[in-house]
């Protein structure tokens, strides 16, 4: 069974219980006072009861004497009956009096009255008997005796009455003092209880409202944006407990939402930054082209015109060369702004090699091995050509032996692997790291380049695929050639 705890009661119940308890306490106190005062009142009532009883005794006694006298005067059966009744009554009353020898004036007097009364009653009985027996002399004598005793008893009763009155008066005075004490003590107790009750009530109410004011403060802090403040955890089942827990949950959730919103905003920011960066790189690449080719359209048109002229003059070789040049530059200009297919990239590489071979009289032995099913895969433009250009410029140029470049495109489930391998000078590990980290620029050879550096290529690849490590450069050392490998993630397509 669940334990009944004070903090689990609802606020209304708590207030009702507290106020109720104080009310019950006050009521109980009132009852107590009532009983105490009532007791004293009863005692006061009883004070003079003994006097009243004695007076009654005296009255009955008088009647006995009276009835006897009347009977002696007029022999009447009614008075005789009255006499017997009163005599019995008087005997009953006498039973209440003390009959022992006790050394107390009142008790002693009671004893005397009782004994004398017994003698008196014997005497009256004899008197009445004598009267009935018409023994005139005896009843007269007995009547005298009885009357004498009557006087003694009556005066004794008076004396007893007096004594009792004195005693009772002192008792009465004491009871008055008791009443006075009761008055004072009742007031003191009442004041104490009321004050104590008020204190308890104040304390209890404060206990009830302390969590509320705490909550108000905490809520203010939360309102100012501090989500790490919390109310003390409670397991109370009252309204305050519920509100406290709800408040804590609310603050937690607020914190959580804020964190999520912040994260998504950061992500968005990151994305925006990335896009901006990519655009920058492209812009940079384009700028390089524009710098080197001030008016590409004019150049294409001129080159086309040159190609037609060569055809007309039957200089077929020249014509093809000029045409390939035109294609190459057109691709550069056109694809500078968008992505391209792998096939288009490969075509650009072919054109570039053709141009170079014309320039360098077929010194570059270029071969490729392409999985043709991958030719339609889309990828950022102007990636392969700069890599091949790099292999030409830094790999096989100025070598003693025959320079070869081999391009391989293979694919698996995750990546398309594009490898550009030369048998040129090779690279040291430092050089490789320098190129991959983008620190090393080959500015000195810019004049003969198409203008796009390796770091630009790497950056664009990473931005495009949001993945790093997409380019790999392997070399076994100086004079042992270099292999640049580009990984194109398949899932993007």
């Amino acid at each position, binding site marked *: 069974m669940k334990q009944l705890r004070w903090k689990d009661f609802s606020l209304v119940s708590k207030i009702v219980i507290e106020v109720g308890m104080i009310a019950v306490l006050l009521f109980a106190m009132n009852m107590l006072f009532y009983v105490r005062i009532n007791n*004293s009142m009863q*005692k006061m009532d009883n004070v003079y009861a003994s006097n009243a009883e004695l007076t009654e005794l005296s009255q009955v006694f008088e009647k006995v004497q009276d009835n006897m006298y009347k009977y002696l005067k007029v022999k009447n059966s009614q008075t005789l009956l009255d006499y017997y009744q009163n005599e019995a009554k008087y005997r009953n009353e006498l039973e209440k009096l003390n009959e*022992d*020898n*006790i*050394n*107390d*004036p*009142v*008790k*002693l007097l009671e*004893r*005397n009255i009782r*004994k*004398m009364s*017994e*003698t*008196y009653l014997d005497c009256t009985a004899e008197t009445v008997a004598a009267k009935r027996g018409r023994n005139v002399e005896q009843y007269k004598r007995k009547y005298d005796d009885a009357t*004498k*005793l009557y006087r*003694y008893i009556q*005066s*004794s009763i008076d*004396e007893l009455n007096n004594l009792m009155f004195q*005693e009772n008066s*002192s*008792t009465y005075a*004491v*009871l008055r*003092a*008791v009443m006075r*004490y*009761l008055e004072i*003590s009742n007031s*003191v*107790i009442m004041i*104490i*209880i009321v004050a*104590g009750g008020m204190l*308890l009530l104040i*304390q209890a109410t404060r206990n009830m409202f302390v969590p509320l004011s705490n909550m108000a403060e905490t809520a203010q802090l939360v309102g100012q944006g501090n989500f790490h403040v919390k109310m003390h955890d409670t397991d109370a089942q009252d309204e305050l407990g519920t509100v406290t827990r709800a408040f804590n949950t609310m603050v937690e959730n607020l914190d959580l939402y804020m964190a999520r919103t912040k994260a998504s905003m950061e992500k968005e920011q990151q994305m925006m930054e990335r896009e901006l960066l990519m655009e920058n790189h492209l812009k940079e690449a384009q700028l390089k082209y524009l710098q080197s080719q001030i008016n590409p359209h004019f150049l294409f048109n001129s080159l086309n015109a040159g190609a037609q002229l060569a055809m007309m003059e039957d200089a077929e070789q020249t014509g093809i060369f000029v045409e390939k040049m035109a294609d190459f530059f057109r691709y550069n200009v056109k694809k500078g702004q968008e992505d391209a297919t792998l096939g288009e990239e490969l075509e650009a590489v072919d054109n570039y090699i053709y141009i170079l071979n014309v320039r360098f009289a077929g010194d570059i032995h270029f071969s490729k091995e392409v999985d043709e099913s991958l030719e339609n895969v889309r990828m950022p433009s102007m990636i392969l050509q700069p890599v091949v250009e790099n292999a030409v410029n830094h790999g096989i140029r100025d070598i003693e032996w025959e320079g070869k470049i081999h391009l391989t495109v293979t694919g698996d489930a995750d990546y398309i692997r594009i490898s550009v391998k030369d048998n040129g000078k090779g690279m040291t590990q430092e050089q490789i790291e320098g190129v991959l980290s983008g620190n090393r620029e080959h500015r000195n050879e810019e004049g003969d380049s198409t203008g796009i550096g390796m770091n630009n290529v790497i950056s664009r690849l990473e931005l495009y695929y949001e993945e790093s490590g997409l380019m790999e450069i392997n070399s076994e050392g100086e004079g042992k050639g270099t292999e640049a490998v580009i990984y194109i993630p398949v899932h993007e397509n």
Partner: protein
Amino acid sequence: MKKKRTKLLVFFALAGILVLFYMIGESYCEGLSRGSSLEEKNEVMCKYKYDMIVDSPNSSFWQAVYDCAQEWAQKNDAILELRGSGRESDYSKLDYMNMSIASNSDGIILQYSGEQGLEAKINEAVQKGIPVVTVMGDAVHSKRQSFVGVSDYQLGSAYGEKVAEYVTEDTESILILLKKNIDDMNQSQIYTQISNAAQAKAGSLQNIQITGKNLRLTGTFETEEAVTDIFQQRDKIPDILVCMDEETTECARQAVLDFNLAGKVTIIGYYSSEDILTAVEKGVISVTCDVDTEQLGRYSIEALTAYQKDGRTNSYYNVDINFLDKNAVREMRRKGVSG
């Protein structure tokens, strides 16, 4: 948690103090209301109840006797009631005897002064099985069980001796104040004894007038008036005044002072109340007869107890008497102070 416990502790402590306060108050209240009847709670129940009937129960002499007798009564499982001590009533000793008989007393101590019918009452009481002991005055012809006191003869000869001591050549008259229910002074042993002793001292040549006056009481303040009367008759003021009870002695002392006769009238008093002793010390009263009140009280109770136990008792208990003059009183006081 600790704070809560402290609070709880304080709360309970306060409640405890309140309860304690209430209980103390209540018991105080109870004590107060019981206090009044507490004195009577010291009640002793006794087997016997004796009555003491004397002429002037409120006099210090009889009070002293009563105190002693009561003490002895308590030791012998009895209580003693001094009749007529508490009320201003005009009951005679006869009435009190009636009351005692009617209330089935277990014994009566009676000062017999020869009232008419009293002997018959004594006989009636004895007949009803109530033993009667007479004190100071004996009802010789009644059926009383015992007499405690000084016999008239004894008292008379003792007084006679004292009177004789004070009889000088100038002594002309001696007045003896008695309270006896007798018609002729010559019936009184006291009177005759004193008279004889005084005459013997004076011898046949000197003629001393010896008178006895019976101050038989018929009403209140009678004694005072009678004594004052004596002193108002200038030529009849006695040289020696013999008082045979406490009241008369005190009245005589006052009269001597009022009439400026101190030293001129020799008073031979009775009993040793504080006033009388002071008077003796100052020489207003020449000598006073001191009856041993303790013996008187004790013997009375002894007589009654003996009768209740054995059915019989000594018929006569003698009580010592002792005369105190100025020197004796001073001696007594000195002892009283130092002791």
